[in-house]
């Protein structure tokens, strides 16, 4: 491994260890809360299982921390595209409730094609419009309910 890769791998491993230890501590803490605070007949059972899992995770993570470093992360050109792709996905999920299925699908599919495929805006919008309406028709035919959004009363379906 080169120096740069070693530094990157160490950073990633430290982040992994930090997240896992935090998760272990939260789960153990929740278990202790059950055992000590909750006055319930089965609090010991429920809390005991949580404590067991939390402690097991902490112990395994500490063993993992002692293991030698291995290369586990590579920065590639694809990272930028993945970030855009995931950003659009989150935007799509966020817009579905308000804008409804057809409008959000149209916008997001067109954005994907434009930003990640380099297609022209007009052709992206045309393909996205066909995809959004055809898929909406298919889902409703299959009796799958879709988020309708605030503008649903203005749209034909």
């Amino acid at each position: 491994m080169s120096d740069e890769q070693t530094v990157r791998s160490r950073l990633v491993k430290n982040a992994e260890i930090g997240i896992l230890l935090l998760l272990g501590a939260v789960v153990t803490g929740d278990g202790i809360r059950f055992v000590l605070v909750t006055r319930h007949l089965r609090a010991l059972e429920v809390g005991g299982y949580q404590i067991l899992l939390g402690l097991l995770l902490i112990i395994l993570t500490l063993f993992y921390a002692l293991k030698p470093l291995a290369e586990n992360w590579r920065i590639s050109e694809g990272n930028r595209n993945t970030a855009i792709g995931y950003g659009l996905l989150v935007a799509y999920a966020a817009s579905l409730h308000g804008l409804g299925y057809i409008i959000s699908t149209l916008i997001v599919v067109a954005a994907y094609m434009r930003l990640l495929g380099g297609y022209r805006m007009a052709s992206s919008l045309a393909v996205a419009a066909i995809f959004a309406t055809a898929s909406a028709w298919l889902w409703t035919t299959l009796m799958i309910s879709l988020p309708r959004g605030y503008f649903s009363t203005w749209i034909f379906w």
Partner: protein
Amino acid sequence: MDAFLAGILAACSPQNLAFAFMGCLIGTIVGVLPGIGAVSAVAILFPFTVYLPPEGMIIALISIYYGSMYGGSTTAILMKVPGEVSSIVTAIDGYEMTKQGRAGPALAIAAIASFLAGIIGTILVATLGPSTARLALGFGPAEYLGLSIFSLTAIAALSGRSLLRGAIIAVVGLILVSVGYDEAAGLARLTFGTTALQQGFNIVPVMIGLFGLGEMLRIYEEETGHFSKVRIEKLMPSREECALGLAAGARATALSFPLGLLPGMLPSVLSFLAYTLEKHFSKTPEKFGKGAVAGVAAAEASNNAAAMGNLLPLMALGVPTGPTMALILGALTVYGLAPGPMLFIAQADFVWTVIGSFFVANVILLVLNLPLVGVWVRIAAIPKAILTPAVMVLCLVGAFSVRNSMFDLWVCVVFGFLGWLLTRAKWPLAPLVLAYVLGPMLESSARQVIELSPLVLLERPLFWMFIVLAALSLWFSRRLWRAIE
């Protein structure tokens, strides 16, 4: 045998045949899309099958699974783009054969070897299923506790090169499934006072996220391969190639079906093992990697035999051995059907129809695949800028439609990122999913054992047998990974 034949007849009813055909067709279409493997295909399409009757849903899912495996092999051979890990081995010799102008024989050998392994596997499932289920009828909490520990240990040890990483991710899976309202005790765990988390994380959005969205995000990082025009002039292999391929396929089936019964022995692991052994014992090992028919046949037969082997513990014991089986288990529970020994008794017709459909799906795929190779190749050439948004929309609609819940949709989005992140950092996903499915069984059987008295374990030899098997799986995993390397 009569029940098996009756099952095949029931699977051949027009309705079931249509489900099997559609499943094979859609599964192959999704399987040939670059980067989408069998698990992702089942995860993405699963929500759309819950609208079918129980038999139809399972038949469609199994057919999607088979179809996507076939589809993955097709792109592996023609484009060196394996749809999933198990097809990587097929690509080694399959793509070399394509470069030598022998794409037709490579596809035909792959299809024939898969078909024969699938048929032999179906017959073995039909033969061994009822006796395994009868044995499991005597299982109590202690045996189920032992079985859960064995399954989790084996999957943690076998699914990746690092046992420690497998164990950590399995514990994370157990923690994630414990989130929400505990019905036995009536207490909410790890909900931090929120009502949304009380319902817990439904397995469908979790799986769609991990395998569907996660794979889609990964596609952006990889070169998906460029398809150079392949001419398929001759489809059928020569007599010599047939003999070599069938012999290799038979050996791979004999190895992979029994090993496929064990948790963690996923088709991806076994296809590597079968290929390595075939090369090791071959009289012409130098031909492997340069277009050996035996290499393609061993990988494909092993893949299918292991898939059949994986189905037996699911049907007879209710224990999934890998992520796809975990999804099929989830599908059965949607209808309130609990796979396991009682399913063979209480729903015998259903079980035999499903087993019959394995047989029918294999026949459909053999008939469907070879003549339509040209169509699969065109589908595989769809640009990823069009493919990925379409699949992402499919994933989110699928996650939303399970309970019409925006919470599930966000769970899917978050687990999609988690799936991408974990794969990127080389953490195995299979132990997480298995722990997610087996967690409730592990916890409830452990609680029952404690309520009865932990001393009851001393009187249950089967519990100790599973513990010994768990220890053996740790030892075996070290040898297996060394053999594959």
